[in-house]
């Protein structure tokens, strides 16, 4: 007994060290994506307040950039409006226009932005009270941004393309072949598109858009363009995609509300 006590006394620091390390490693291993999202939701409630204050200052400094972005977006929208109104004039009845609206957008701001980690998360300043819920898609005027992971009353966390847990069904705009877009954790400017079979003809600069296979994003939201591709793994291409969204200066985003998401999910779940 005494030797045991002496042993503990002698190695107490080592034992404490091992205990704490085991605790930390357990946290890491147990920290699956789901628990991580809960943890983040908790920490966002704590730190959301602080970040909001800081954001007030940052907002002031970036007013000029935001202005320029808004002007660009305005022009873009006006152009599109022109196109649409000419279509309407020629009495084409579009299915999407005929019924109720299928999608609507919630304007939001990024209040916390970390992009140089492996598992990056962004925080938005809109939450449940403004109609932002889990599994909604997020876009900016540059392109696709990510998916809402969790939302509290007034904040939401967003899992962007540049998070190693992120997966998106995306296709090549010209020929409609769909693959899976993921991030390789190296540069926030590039992602990787896989599972495009070898017989598809590709060329650098081809646009990659969302496939619309999930209920999260509408079809055809621009993601990026092909920067380079190779056929190293046999039957499938490894495509490096340059992302349109520049996460370094991302500020204003839109959250997509799909009014028929529930309907689609319910129908799809019938056969599972």
């Amino acid at each position, binding site marked *: 007994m005494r030797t045991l006590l002496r042993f503990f006394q002698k190695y*107490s*620091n080592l034992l*404490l*060290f091992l205990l*704490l*390390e085991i*605790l*930390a*490693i*357990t*946290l*890491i291993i*147990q*920290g699956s994506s789901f*628990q*991580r999202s809960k*943890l*983040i939701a*908790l*920490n*966002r409630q*704590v*730190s959301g307040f*602080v970040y909001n204050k*800081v954001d007030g200052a940052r907002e002031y400094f970036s007013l000029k950039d935001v202005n320029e972005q808004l002007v660009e977006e305005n022009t873009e929208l006006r152009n599109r409006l022109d196109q649409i109104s000419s279509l309407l004039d020629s009495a084409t009845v579009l299915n999407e226009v005929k019924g109720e609206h299928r999608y609507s957008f919630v304007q939001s701001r990024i209040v916390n932005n*970390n*992009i*140089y*980690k*492996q*598992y990056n*998360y962004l925080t938005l300043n809109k939450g449940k009270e403004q109609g932002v819920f889990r599994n909604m898609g997020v876009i900016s005027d540059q392109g696709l941004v990510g998916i809402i992971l969790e939302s509290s009353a007034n904040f939401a*966390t967003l899992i962007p393309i540049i998070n190693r847990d992120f997966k998106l069904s995306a296709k090549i705009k010209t020929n409609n072949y769909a693959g899976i877009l993921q991030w390789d*954790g*190296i*540069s*926030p400017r590039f992602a990787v598109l896989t599972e495009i079979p070898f017989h598809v003809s590709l060329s650098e600069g081809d646009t990659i858009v969302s496939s619309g296979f999930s209920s999260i994003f509408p079809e055809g939201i621009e993601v990026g363009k092909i920067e380079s591709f190779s056929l190293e793994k046999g039957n499938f291409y490894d495509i490096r995609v340059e992302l349109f969204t520049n996460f*370094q200066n991302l500020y204003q985003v839109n959250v997509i509300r799909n009014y028929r998401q529930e309907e689609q999910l319910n129908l799809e779940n019938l056969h599972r």
Partner: protein
Amino acid sequence: MYIIARNIFRFVVVILFQVLVMDNVMISGYMIPYIYILFIILMPFETPRWVQLLSGFALGFTMDLFTGTPGMHTAACVLIAFIRPYMLELLAPRDGYEPETYPRIHYYGFIWFLKYTVIIVLIHHLALFYLEVFQLKGFFSTLLRVILSTILSTSTIVLSQYFVFRK
């Protein structure tokens, strides 16, 4: 009592500085400054080891809460809190550390502080970055991130000695 209060104050300050300022410094994905471990680096020499370990745990855990990472900062901080006393022993001047002094440039000079900081920062960054990636794929790109970030963190910490913790 005074020392404890000062250390708690420093704990809060380094965390806030890291989260509010340093985490917004984005030079490139290869250079991320982590200076909050300054708290562990500056702890007094005679701090009991178990206090160092628990402080390291608390520091890492708080950081994890703010960055939303599970346990990675905690593991790295506990590791350096454990290794620090051995490092201090290894780097001790011939006559040992004098009482009433702290591990700072002001007392032990630039070269000593640089050696001490580089070792602690390097160990912390090695643990943190590899835990974050959690795979050996891209071993060398991670190593490059570790080395570049170590350079950046160390220079920031050493500079802080001249501007903030002058005596």
